[in-house]
């Protein structure tokens, strides 16, 4: 498509729309992408990222990452830092699936050891991890105990036998955003989600068995530091979020903010999906506390799923998960808002950072990283399509431009209905199996919608983040088995 005429090339990977692009813009909007990627971005990205640039309290620029496409309110790939005193918080800057995120787990198994068991492994994962429309989990908790999960996240899992102590250290923020307050979530949200702990969900959510081939290791030193030490090593990656609970929290507060933003706070509605409230207001603080509950629910969800994955591998290989070396590489959120400290105009300041379809990517030496990653920078997990593979990256020292934020996936370029026209799910499953990827799904239609051709080229996306100095490639991870929601 034609690029907006006022889009200015700042560098090979930064494209800027000036404040004159749209009335009300407070800062310029910047798109992080190569020329090839910026040219395939949909018009929604330019419109939405410049709407974000109009939000009160925004600092420096509104950003969109290289995998960006239109979203609700913010584009997917949207990043915005707000002044916590004078700025706003917007559910549209976080997304409906609060703390949708990625987790990567090691094994000490090789492709040669796993390949003969791949059908049994994938089938067992498929039966043990509920997927699909309206699925419920195996963790039985009362609605009041669910409140503990909301406030404690992965810590609840540790206390209840679903986590190893080191899992928490390998999770962003230790698997618990402090300040979560279960009193700030609706009964509806609890009713919708309290029995969904340990479920994958649907759409683009998946659990994948992947191989790290020697030729796909880009940085050996970082690979070793992240635990990739064996040729053809098998790892497990999964992608899911806060399920119906988080979706309801987002829906509830979106409507609350819509009802107060103009009437009570005089904030202009540019788009009903971009509803917001002052961060420093009762509504803003209530949403922040409720959003943290959804963040913690998602951490617990991924932790319980990891527990199940360890059980499955243990039963198939007749060894304990410890003996199989099933340690976490890391767990990263890509739909959140949080307070972080960053340099702003030469001074270290607290900012309220919205990342929607964007991963935190702290560079070497930054506070908040576990000791083992202080020298390497944070592992960044980028999920690709189920056909083409994914990436493990590392945060870079040069990521300050985007407040140490990077891409989150490959980003769709084709609608779900268009993707279905490429072929039926059953055929895709057969084709993929011929190429060495065994897939199980609850939904043939859903599978067809996730075909690799529906996504951008992930190699180009991660290369753009590396060229922009946000995250560097460590290894490309290739699927051999996949369960899809």
């Amino acid at each position, binding site marked *: 498509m034609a690029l907006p005429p006022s889009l200015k090339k700042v560098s090979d990977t930064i494209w800027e729309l000036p404040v004159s692009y749209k009335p009300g813009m407070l800062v310029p909007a910047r798109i992080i992408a190569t020329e090839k990627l910026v040219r395939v971005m*949909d018009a929604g990205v330019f419109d939405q990222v410049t709407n974000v640039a109009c939000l009160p309290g925004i600092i420096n620029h509104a950003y969109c990452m290289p995998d960006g*496409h*239109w*979203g*609700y309110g913010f584009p*997917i790939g949207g990043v915005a830092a707000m002044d916590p005193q004078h700025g706003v918080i917007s559910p549209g800057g976080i997304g*409906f*699936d609060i703390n949708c995120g990625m987790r990567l787990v090691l094994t000490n198994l090789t492709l040669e050891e796993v390949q003969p068991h791949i059908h049994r492994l994938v089938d067992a994962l498929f039966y043990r991890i509920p997927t*699909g*429309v*309206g699925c*419920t989990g195996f963790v039985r908790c009362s609605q009041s105990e669910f409140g503990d999960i909301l406030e404690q996240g992965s810590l609840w899992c540790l206390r209840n036998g679903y986590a190893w102590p080191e899992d928490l250290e390998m999770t962003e923020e230790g698997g618990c955003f402090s300040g979560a307050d279960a009193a700030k979530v609706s009964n*509806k949200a609890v*009713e*919708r*989600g309290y029995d*969904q702990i340990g479920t994958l*969900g*649907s*759409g*683009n959510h998946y659990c994948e068995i992947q191989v790290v081939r020697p030729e796909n290791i880009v940085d050996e030193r970082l690979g070793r530091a992240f635990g990739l030490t064996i040729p053809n090593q098998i790892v497990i990656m999964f992608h899911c979020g806060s*399920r*119906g609970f988080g*979706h*309801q929290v*987002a*829906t509830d507060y*979106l409507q609350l903010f*819509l009802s107060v933003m103009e009437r009570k706070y005089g904030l202009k509605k540019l*788009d*009903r*999906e971009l509803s917001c409230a002052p961060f420093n207001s009762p509504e803003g603080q209530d949403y922040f506390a409720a959003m943290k509950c959804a963040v913690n629910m998602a951490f617990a969800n991924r932790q319980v799923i990891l527990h199940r994955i360890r059980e499955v591998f243990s039963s198939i290989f007749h060894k304990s998960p410890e003996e199989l070396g099933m340690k976490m590489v890391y767990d990263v959120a890509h739909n959140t808002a949080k307070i972080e400290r960053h340099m702003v105009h030469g001074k270290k300041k607290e900012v309220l950072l919205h990342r929607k379809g964007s991963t935190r990517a702290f560079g070497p030496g930054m506070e908040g990283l576990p000791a083992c990653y202080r020298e390497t920078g944070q592992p960044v997990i980028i999920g690709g399509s189920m056909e083409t593979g994914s990436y493990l990256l590392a945060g870079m020292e040069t990521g300050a431009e985007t407040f140490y934020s990077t891409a989150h996936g490959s980003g*769709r*370029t*084709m*609608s*779900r*209905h*268009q993707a279905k026209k490429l072929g039926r799910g059953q055929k895709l499953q057969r084709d993929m199996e011929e190429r060495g990827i065994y897939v199980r799904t*609850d*939904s043939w*239609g*859903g599978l067809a*919608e996730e075909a690799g051709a529906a996504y951008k080229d992930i190699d180009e996306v991660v290369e753009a983040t590396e060229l922009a100095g946000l995250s560097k490639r460590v290894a490309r991870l290739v699927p051999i088995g996949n369960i899809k*929601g």
Partner: protein
Amino acid sequence: MPYRYLEEIATADTAFEATGSTLEEVFTAAADALLNTMTADVTGIAPEETTTFETHNAELDLLLFDVLNELVFLKDAKRLLLRIQSIAFSHDKEMYRAKITARGERIDPARHRLLVDVKAVTLHRFSLEETEHGWKACVVLDI
């Protein structure tokens, strides 16, 4: 079918347009379009369980938004796939009100051809408008 899916609006998600000669028809068609996003065979949903709910909103379009959101909620909270049976609308000074009777059955992956889960009904390009032939709604669902 009084609804059709729109391909060009939602790259990552699903958008549809629903129509009806009356308000009740367009609400019913929109609910079916929502259901058809999650399961392939809408007419095969047996009317085994009946549920009723009431909702109100100062804006008529947001009344539809609320009804669709309630159906998404019931899908997760009660595991129900529902079709609207009847709607009683009323309108007083400040509020539009709808009393919905919906029928359907519990999700059964063994019998229902399930497609994709709906996370949320969005307000992105959401509209409900009166046309020459009745009513038309445009809805984008987050998948």
